[in-house]
């Protein structure tokens, strides 16, 4: 299925017009930048309505099969939508675990029943999904997950504890990594993958209050929770492989995800914009030579990432350290983001001491909260320290 540039261009204009007309007005409370920041029902309702509207207009799951609520189209259309959403600065499509992890997996390896049951409701935001990979004792060491799943007739009995469950308190389903065979020789081979309902007895969630003061994650406790045996995806023991497979979809519509804007990128433009009016030593802060040096460094960090993504597509320019650009992108992006947000506060002068909730806080305390939230990316999904090990070992071949 090949789509002409011409078709895409016309489509882009159509989407752009729709977004312009339908971008919801400021609701009067801070909207989440990422799905990990959905802290209360008010935000939830708002985002659910927005996602439903986007899907109803035909702009979500465009490459998914029509019979399961998708559009059956070339993924290139969805990519156009995603780009335009970013450009129009609309709210996120917040059901990210459904749209980007569980959904594509079910679409690719699920049964017809599973597809019929789950896919449309993921797109419409009817069912919210969450992810149960991390455990309290094994933050950086996923393969070591200890939550147990024991087969008992037509059911699995789940016991254990997950943590950092984004929207765990709102979700109807969880993609769950649990240990079916504690005796397996390789720890990875003892894991299995489940589409696990959250509304069965024995599943309890406890909201985790974040460093920002807000909510967004839960701890999830399983106490003899019984789930149907057909919740198992693939075979027992294939959990690690399937979990890794879900990570592939993250790269967007072309990789199989339903698409939709998954996070509001905060850019150095936003920082520069946000510093308008700030003064240092009686002058605009961006006139200060030391500040200028710092801001140029931040611009260069961001520009290097954009250019790096382009260079990664040029074969002859990636032969030195093959795979280096994609494998380091999480480390690079998350650390650069943290530094930039910290800089943005540092440059605010005394106003940098204010916080979300203060009427005079610059942009409602956006940067203060954004700096704190940036740690979710430098810690979650493998800390930066672990990421650096991975890059060193896989790209440079340094010993473990």
């Amino acid at each position, binding site marked *: 299925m090949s789509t002409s540039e011409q078709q895409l261009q016309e489509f882009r204009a159509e989407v752009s017009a729709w977004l312009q007309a339908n971008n919801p007005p400021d609701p009067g409370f801070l909207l989440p930048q990422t799905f990990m920041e959905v802290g209360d029902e008010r935000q939830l309702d708002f985002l659910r309505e927005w996602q439903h509207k986007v899907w109803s207009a035909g702009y979500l799951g465009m490459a998914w099969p029509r019979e399961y609520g998708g559009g059956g189209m070339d993924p290139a259309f969805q990519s156009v939508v995603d780009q335009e959403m970013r450009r129009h600065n609309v709210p996120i499509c917040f059901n990210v675990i459904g749209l980007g992890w569980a959904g594509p997996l079910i679409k690719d390896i699920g049964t017809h029943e599973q597809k019929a049951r789950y896919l449309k409701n993921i797109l419409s935001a009817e069912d919210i999904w969450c992810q149960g990979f*991390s455990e*309290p*004792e*094994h*933050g*950086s*060491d996923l393969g070591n997950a200890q939550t147990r799943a024991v087969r008992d007739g037509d059911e699995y009995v789940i016991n254990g504890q997950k*943590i*950092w469950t984004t929207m765990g308190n709102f979700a109807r389903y969880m993609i769950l990594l649990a240990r079916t065979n504690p005796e397996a020789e390789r720890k990875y081979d003892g894991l299995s993958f489940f589409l696990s309902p959250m509304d069965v007895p024995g599943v309890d969630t406890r909201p*985790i*209050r*974040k*460093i920002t*003061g807000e909510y967004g994650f839960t701890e999830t406790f399983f106490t003899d929770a019984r789930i149907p045996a057909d919740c198992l995806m693939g075979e027992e023991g294939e959990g690690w492989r399937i979990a890794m497979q879900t990570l592939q979809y993250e790269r967007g519509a072309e990789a199989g995800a339903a698409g939709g804007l998954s996070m509001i990128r905060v850019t150095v433009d936003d920082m520069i914009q946000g510093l308008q009016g*700030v*003064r*240092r*030593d*009686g002058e605009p802060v961006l006139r*200060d030579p*030391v*500040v200028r040096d710092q801001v140029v460094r931040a611009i260069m960090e961001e520009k290097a990432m954009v250019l790096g993504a382009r260079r990664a597509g040029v074969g002859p320019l990636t032969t030195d350290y093959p795979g280096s650009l994609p494998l380091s992108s999480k480390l690079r992006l998350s650390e650069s983001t*943290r530094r930039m947000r*910290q800089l943005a*506060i*540092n440059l*605010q*002068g*005394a*106003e*940098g*001491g*204010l*916080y*979300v*909730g*203060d*009427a*005079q*806080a610059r942009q409602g*305390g956006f940067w*203060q909260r954004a700096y*704190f939230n940036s*740690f*979710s990316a*430098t*810690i*979650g999904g493998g*800390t*930066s*320290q672990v990421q*650096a*090990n991975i890059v060193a070992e896989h790209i440079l071949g340094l010993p473990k």
Partner: protein
Amino acid sequence: MTVLGNTALSFTEEQAMLLDVARDFCRDKSPLSTVREHLESGPGFDAGLWREIAELGWCGISLPESCGGSGLGVGALVPVLEAMGRAMLTTPLLSTALAGQLLLRAAGQERAESWLADIAAGSAATVAWLEGGDWGDPAIHSTVDAGGALSGQKRFVVDAGVAALILVPVMQGDEPALALLRRENLPDGALTPNVLIDQTRRSANLHLDGISVDPADIVTGPQVERALADTRLLGALLVAAEAAGSAGACLDTVVEYLKTRKQFGKLIGSYQALKHPCVDILLGLDDARSFIYHAATLVHDGPLDADAEIACRMAKAQACEVLSYAGDRAVQFHGGMGFTWECDAQLYIRRAQWSQQQFGDPQHHRKRLATLLLD
């Protein structure tokens, strides 16, 4: 001559005793669980504890004995603030001590005697330093007229909500003056509380329009400007002392976690990626403590000389630099835990952000230092 200039560092027996007492007091009376109880409501501290502090005489440490103080000089406040910073115990002590210094320097001991006696006895006070966010712009736009009517606005007035006395820098004609504003004369709505990133703190915006002070409560004279400048430097020093204390506690917290948390089968403190940054914090902290006690050696009751100014600025730049780094790393090194409200790392990273913005950030002070050292 060397650009290092004065490198004196001495420590009196009184300072040693104060450090000792303050540490014990803070440890016993203000564990972090207590600090946390006050984060989200009220004045941010325990009123009873504040009374105890007053009874210990800390409010008058640096005030003359004739006013009920101990006459130990402002350098004696440094160990106390460091100990309080280590415990993350705030109280209005820092604001009150600075207000005392400003009064003493601007109005003189004789004229300010009754005010100073109140302060020494534990009556909280503060100074309304800022009208905008820029510590590098000391211009005052608020005014007072001959009849004592104030106009203008002050921002970020620390502890304004509990201070019995607010010292308000204002212009009287072309001259800077100090209006002594009694809390009891504040109309409703004069204060708008701020929401601060450091939840152990409280500050407020102060709307001056419509407020008057007794003309007798306006301090004028050529010494006011110098007093303001010197007291800002002392503010930088005391915040630095407090920040150094907080950085030490933050380091302890991280180290404790790294000694007990395992990942991939090893104590995470054995990984150099976590271990070496802790050493960086330790070294930065050691430097900060050297600077603050050097500055404590050089500040005194008279106008501050260039050596003292250099010392205060270096102390502030170094202490806030290390606390910012320590707070940031504390969150990161706690992993997922570090991202929670429950983890104490949040207290330090928030304190770091607030402290660096008080009395000028490290870049601000290095800029001033360049002028003092290189020109």
